[in-house]
Each structure stands twice: as structure tokens, then as C-alpha cells.
């Protein structure tokens, strides 16, 4: 029966999701799958293009070994189906009849063009919630624009504000443009579902990744709207008010740490750091004389920042990241690591909460440590989690086509032979 997963009683256990997305939208279905929904990833025969995205397990670039795929397809099941073929569309329609959600990330108009637009699907299942995740939305002047990650992060307003002020704006070196929209797609699906619960009616939701990125800009849009000022990127610094800025990241012996000089209510943190620097034999007499307690947020002037940079820079570079982090905990200094992947693997808080989950990839003879559920229950119940390793291409074809739709072995063989599944 669709929408019930054996042994899984997480929040969304009763519901079935058809996930037609590629790398742009996979996270939407992943979020719902982590919450317990039964998510069927619909892949083209041969596998999703997302399987071509590295890095790869053992650096072996095969579709079954893409770590990008693993990260965003875990918990899902996979069936293959060619939407460009009539038999493929007929299979999809049968799945739609029993599904609660359909999520897709094709170019605007693609599904409509092959006869699988929302109106048609709603004719089959009026309760269906359909969510489209695209770069700019289904219509409007950019709707047919080509958008890669960097193009989207630029048009969303993020890049202008990120990077060193004497070089080009930068993006984050892991693509975020589409996954912002994909995460919004999961929220959109649940909003539409909530409406369906009371009204009985499904609907169509159109998500824009550009808007999703524009919503990450904190108060920068308001600063233009209210003050007519355009915020600019400032590298390792953070603007606190007017011309005043504080340095955020500092190089240490083996990496970087995050430390923002602050006065006022957290002057104790600055005092403790200066005391530590003094123990190291650095001359901080002038800095000790500053009335930190009287300096509120935004009151560190550029002159004071320059004065701080010498001794603090020298202090940090003399210690490892681990020394600085541990020493800061002991001395109540507000200093944090600029974490690298290895540091996150052994993170004491993540370990204590049992965040990472080992999952067995039998076909590889390997056990892999995955990032776990994004949410837990505060009252000890299982509400979300990781329960199924990412599917092989079409791994669940038989389970679904034979087990659920009742196709005969013969029919399945034929569909395989003519390239539909």
C-alpha cells in the first residue's frame, strides 16, 4: 500500500511523494523522506543526471557512487521511467493516482509540453499537491534564462555581499542556489498539504530559487529601502555600524578561528583573551587600557581595530585551532573554530547527540557515516531519521511495478526491452 513504510513511524509516514527532480530539487524530497514520507525517486532509464556529480566513492566516477546523490537520495526508493515515452507517462499517471505529492525541477513548461502539466495530473488526482522548483519561477522575464549555481547566487543578491572588497564577489564553493529553493519546496509542499487536510483540495505551488536566495540577505535590502545605502562585501570583516567593522576570521597555526572583538556586556571575553596573550609574552598594555566595558556593539573604531590586529594576529598564529578552542572554553572567551570537514566528523556535540548514522552499502562492502536527521524529538520519540541507504538505479522497479501496479513479469521485461524503464 502506498504511503506506509514498514517499521517507520516518523511524522510523515502515511504519505507518498513522487520525486521527479534532478540535482536541483533532490533536497525537497529528502527533507520529506527524513520526516518519514515514502519518497519514490523517478529516474530516467540509466539514472538521474545528479548521479554524475562528484565527489565519488573511492574517486570512482560511476553513477552508483556519486556522493552528491548519496547525500540527497538517502531514504528514497528508486524507480526508472522514461517520461518521453507514452508507456512511461502511463506508468507515471498510475502512480499519480495514489500519490500525495509530486515534486519536479524541470525547465518551466517541460511537463506541460509532454502532457503531464498540473491540470492533467489534477484530473487524475484532485488531491495531488504538485511543487515545481525552478531558478526563477514558472513565468516572468527570466523564466527561460539559463541558470547555473553562480548565476543564481549572483542574481539573488548573495554574491555582491560576499568576498574580499578588492576582488570579484564570490559564491560558496558548494552550490547553494538550487538547494535553497529545494528546501523551500519542502516547506511549500507541507503548506499545501495542510490546506488539503481541511479543504480536501490539492494545488500547484511554484517556487523560485532566486527569491529563496534573496531571502538570505538579512537586513541588507532594508538598508537600501530605508537608508538608501548599498551594503558591500568586506572579506574577513563584518560591518557593525557606519565605518566601524570588526574582523571575524583569523589565521592560526593550523587553520582559522572565528573571533569578534566585542565590548559592553561581553567585555569579559576580550579581557580574558588579552590576559592570555599577555601570558604568552605579548605586549598588550595599550589594549588593556581600553575601556572595553563602555564600548557597546558597533563601537570598535577602525583605529582600534588596526591597533588590535597586530598583537591579536600574532597571538592566534602562535596557537593551533584546538588549543585556541579549548583554551577559550576554559577562559570564557567567545572564540569558535572555522570548522573543516574533519573537525565536524569528530565534533563532541554531534557525537553526543548521535548525529552521524552508519549505513551499510552491501554492494560495496562498505559502511558509510552519513549526516543524520535535521530534526529530533525533544521528548525521546523517533520523528525523523535515516533508515534506507540511497537507492541503486531502478532498485525498486519490481517492488513498485509488480508489487503495487500489478504488472506481470512479461510486461516489465517488455518495458525494459523497449527502454521505458
Amino acid at each position, binding site marked *: 500500500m502506498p504511503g506506509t513504510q514498514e517499521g517507520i513511524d516518523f*511524522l510523515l509516514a502515511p504519505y507518498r511523494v513522487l520525486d521527479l527532480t534532478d540535482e536541483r530539487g533532490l533536497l525537497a524530497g529528502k527533507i520529506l523522506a527524513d520526516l518519514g514520507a515514502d519518497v519514490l525517486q523517478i529516474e530516467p532509464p540509466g539514472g538521474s543526471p545528479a548521479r554524475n556529480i562528484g*565527489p565519488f566513492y*573511492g574517486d570512482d566516477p560511476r553513477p552508483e557512487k556519486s556522493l552528491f546523490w548519496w*547525500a540527497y537520495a538517502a531514504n528514497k526508493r528508486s524507480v526508472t521511467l522514461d517520461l518521453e515515452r507514452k508507456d512511461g507517462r502511463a506508468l507515471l499517471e498510475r502512480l499519480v493516482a495514489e500519490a500525495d505529492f509530486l515534486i519536479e525541477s524541470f525547465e518551466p513548461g517541460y511537463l506541460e509540453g509532454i502532457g503531464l502539466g*498540473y491540470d492533467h495530473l489534477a484530473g487524475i488526482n484532485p488531491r495531488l499537491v504538485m511543487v515545481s522548483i525552478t531558478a526563477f*519561477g514558472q513565468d516572468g522575464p527570466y523564466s527561460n534564462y*539559463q541558470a547555473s549555481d*553562480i*548565476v543564481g547566487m549572483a*542574481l539573488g543578491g*548573495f554574491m*555582491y555581499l*560576499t*568576498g574580499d572588497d578588492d576582488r570579484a564577489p*564570490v*559564491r*560558496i*564553493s*558548494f552550490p547553494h542556489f538550487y*538547494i535553497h529553493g529545494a528546501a*523551500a519546496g*519542502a516547506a511549500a509542499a*507541507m503548506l*499545501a498539504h495542510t490546506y488539503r487536510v481541511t479543504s480536501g483540495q490539492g*494545488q*500547484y*505551488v511554484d517556487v523560485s530559487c532566486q527569491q529563496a536566495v*534573496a531571502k*538570505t540577505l*538579512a*537586513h541588507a*535590502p*532594508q538598508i*537600501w*529601502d530605508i537608508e538608501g545605502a*548599498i551594503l*558591500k562585501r568586506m572579506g*574577513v570583516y*563584518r560591518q557593525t*555600524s557606519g565605518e566601524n567593522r570588526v574582523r571575524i*576570521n*583569523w*589565521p592560526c597555526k593550523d587553520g582559522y578561528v*572565528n573571533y*569578534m572583538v566585542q565590548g559592553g556586556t561581553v567585555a569579559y571575553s576580550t579581557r580574558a583573551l588579552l590576559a592570555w596573550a599577555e601570558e604568552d609574552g605579548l605586549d598588550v598594555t595599550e589594549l588593556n587600557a581600553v575601556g572595553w566595558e563602555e564600548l557597546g556593539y558597533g563601537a570598535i573604531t577602525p583605529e582600534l581595530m588596526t591597533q588590535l590586529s597586530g598583537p591579536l594576529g600574532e597571538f592566534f598564529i602562535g596557537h593551533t585551532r584546538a588549543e585556541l578552542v579549548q583554551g577559550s572554553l576554559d577562559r570564557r572567551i567567545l572564540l569558535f573554530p*572555522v*570548522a573543516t*570537514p574533519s573537525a*565536524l*566528523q569528530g565534533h563532541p*556535540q554531534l557525537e*553526543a*547527540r548521535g548525529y552521524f548514522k552508519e549505513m551499510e552499502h552491501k554492494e560495496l562492502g562498505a559502511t558509510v*557515516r*552519513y*549526516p543524520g536527521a535535521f530534526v529530533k*524529538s*525533544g*521528548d525521546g520519540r523517533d*520523528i525523523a531519521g535515516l533508515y534506507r541507504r540511497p537507492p541503486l538505479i531502478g532498485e525498486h522497479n519490481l517492488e513498485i511495478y509488480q508489487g503495487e501496479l500489478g504488472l506481470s513479469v512479461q510486461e516489465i521485461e517488455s518495458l525494459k526491452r523497449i527502454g521505458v524503464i
Partner: protein
Amino acid sequence: MTAHPTSNKPLDGVNVLDFCWVAVGPMTTKYLGEYGATVVRVESAKRPGTLRRGAPFKDGISGINRSAYFASYNANKMGITVDMRHPRARELMLRMAKWAHLVTENFTPGTMESWELGFDQLKEVNPGIVMFSTSMMGRGGPMERQPGFGPVLSSLVGLTNLTGWPDRDPVNPYGAYTDFIVPRFAVAAILAGLDRSRRTGEGIHIDMSQLETNLHFSAPVLLDYAVNGREQSRMGNRDPGAAPHGAFPCSGDDRWIALSCSNDDQWEGLQRTIAPDGVGWPHNPDFATFLGRKANEDELEKLLSNWTSSWEVGALMETLQSAGVPAGMVNDCRDLFDDAQIQHRGHFQWLDHPEIGPYATDTSEMVFSVSPGSLDTPAPLLGQHTSHVLKELIGLSDDEYKSLEEDGVLE
């Protein structure tokens, strides 16, 4: 008064008792308000929240009701003031909890419990209640009380490590970036919790660690370390799947075009645009194949920058897009308001605030065919709805209200 007089929204009838403050919580409950929930924010007049004291202010003059930062994240909500340290506050909040379907908070773990308003206590008065708690590190564990805010968390979750130039120090993604990743996960989880409560009659406590949620925005990078032992780091604007791939200068001050070519069609579109007659540097045999462009990317970027720098950025975006090349201008915040697509989507909406006047706030990135959201009311003045909420929504008598007021509970 109701917050949303004409409504056919997904969350009509959902009551939210909202203790959230700063950014990550209020952005989450803003979605709920935009889609029809009645959101009542609990604030304290004695300790007004951080964002009420955050720029920009109307006319540059600070004031508790003048922050457009606060106003943006708190549209469509009602606001009440309660001194949570007052002995009578707890009883009042339990009455609110009976009214609520959802209680939200993003304090340091233990704060709600210190007021004896933890999940167990809320459940006693309202067995079906959903409580949503989010904190930097999650509940329990050795670091649950670790202080910090957005720029700190970007570093802790590994995103700072992935941002910047390889020959320079890493930089933070702009602002309190992680605060804006969490809310969509939060909305999905909250609504899943409400759905389950509706089906089973049983309440639930959702605990969201912002650290854990954010790791899903770099999960393949973590897996790369877990299985291959590789420590990925910042690459400037380079990408293994495209060349060229970056932001290139245009005419004017600090104007840039972002573009990328990840296949031959896109590269040929760029070639045709730069050298339509088939002559010139784009036809250099060094650039003939993808691997050739990758191997000679420094040179390619230099030549491309020379070419882009004479273009007006908007014209270049249109020209490249019509040649099939992914290209977009690097929008600053003024550009964003002028952006044709952002305008088409109605992304920014202006609300009229009694002290700020008209101010811009962003609407959701979702367009619903049947039950659209809308932002109808500006953020509440401090304590604006205390009387309305307590008398009309939870039915306090005039005498009860007066007694709370005289006792200093409603401050």
C-alpha cells in the same frame, strides 16, 4: 480584530504562541503568519529583543518601534508584552498554551524549563500541543548552551571554510547566513508535527539543532571526508564542472557579470558572442575542449575579463542569455529591487508601519495556485496587541486584565 481578515489560507485557524527572537525563529514564524496562522509574539518591555535594536531605523533615529530589520521579520504577527520573570507570567502563558496549537521558541535550551513552561508542562494543559525548539547546538550534549549567533555558526558548520579565495583567508558567507537556511526545514518539520498531532491527538516536541540542519547544505562535502578522507576547501569561483566559471568585471564601479559554461553549446554561444566571425582568442586551440579550457583557465579568465569590462552589465546578461550562455548580473541590493524577475514575482511588498511608514519586506518564494499567502499587517509595536490578545483571544475579563496590568505582569 483578526490579523488576516479576508483569508483562504493553508494555516487559517492555526494558533501560534511565539517566543522566538532575533532572526531564525521570527523568519520561521513569518512564513506561518504569511500563510494564515494567528501568530502572537511574546516580548518583554524590560528586555526588548535584539532585532528591535538593530539598524536600519527610520530617519536613522533608533527607537524600539523604528527598526526596519525587526519590522521585516515580524509582519503579520501580533505582539504582546509579558515579563516572563514575574511570578504570574507562567499561569498566563499556560492559558495562552491552551489556546495555541503550536508553541515556538529559540532560546538557549533550558530557558522555557526555567519558567516551568517546558514541553511536559505545556502538554499537561494541552495534550495535542506541538512545541518547536531550535537552538544553535540542539538540546542535550556538552555544548547545548554554547553562545553565539549567525556569523559564528557559519564558521562552526563549515561554510566559512568553503567560502573565499584559495590564496587568501576564508570569508564568511554574508550576514547571519545560517539563520536563513534553517527556517524552511523548520516550517516543514513544524507542519509535519501539526499533521501528526491532528491525526493522533498527541502533542510532540520538535528539537532542531541549527548546526545539524545546516550540515545538509554541505552533506556531500562531509561524505567526501568520511569515505575519501578529503578535506574540501574554498575554490574562489572555480567549479570542477565548468570553465569559464566566475564573476567578471563590467563597466562602472564594482559591476560584475556571473557566467559559466558547462558544455560545448554554452561555450560556443560565448564564442559566437565574442568573436562572431570565427576569428579571435575564443578560437584559440587551447580552448577547443573542456579540458583545454580547464587547463588554461587563468588565461581564459584574463581574456574574458578584458572583454566583459567594456560591457554594461545588464546588456551583457541579456546578450549572453540570448546566446544560450548562463549569465546573470551580480545584483546589489538596489539592483534587487529593480530586478525585472524579482518585481514580476512581487518579492518585495511594502507595508505601512505607524512609526516607520512604508517599509519593504520580502514575501515567500512560493506561489500557490489555490491558497496564496499574503502579508497584510506591519510588525507589531511593542505590546500593541496585549489587550486584544488577552481579552479577545483567550477571554480574560476586564478585571483579570486590570489585575495583571497593575501587578506589572504585562511589561
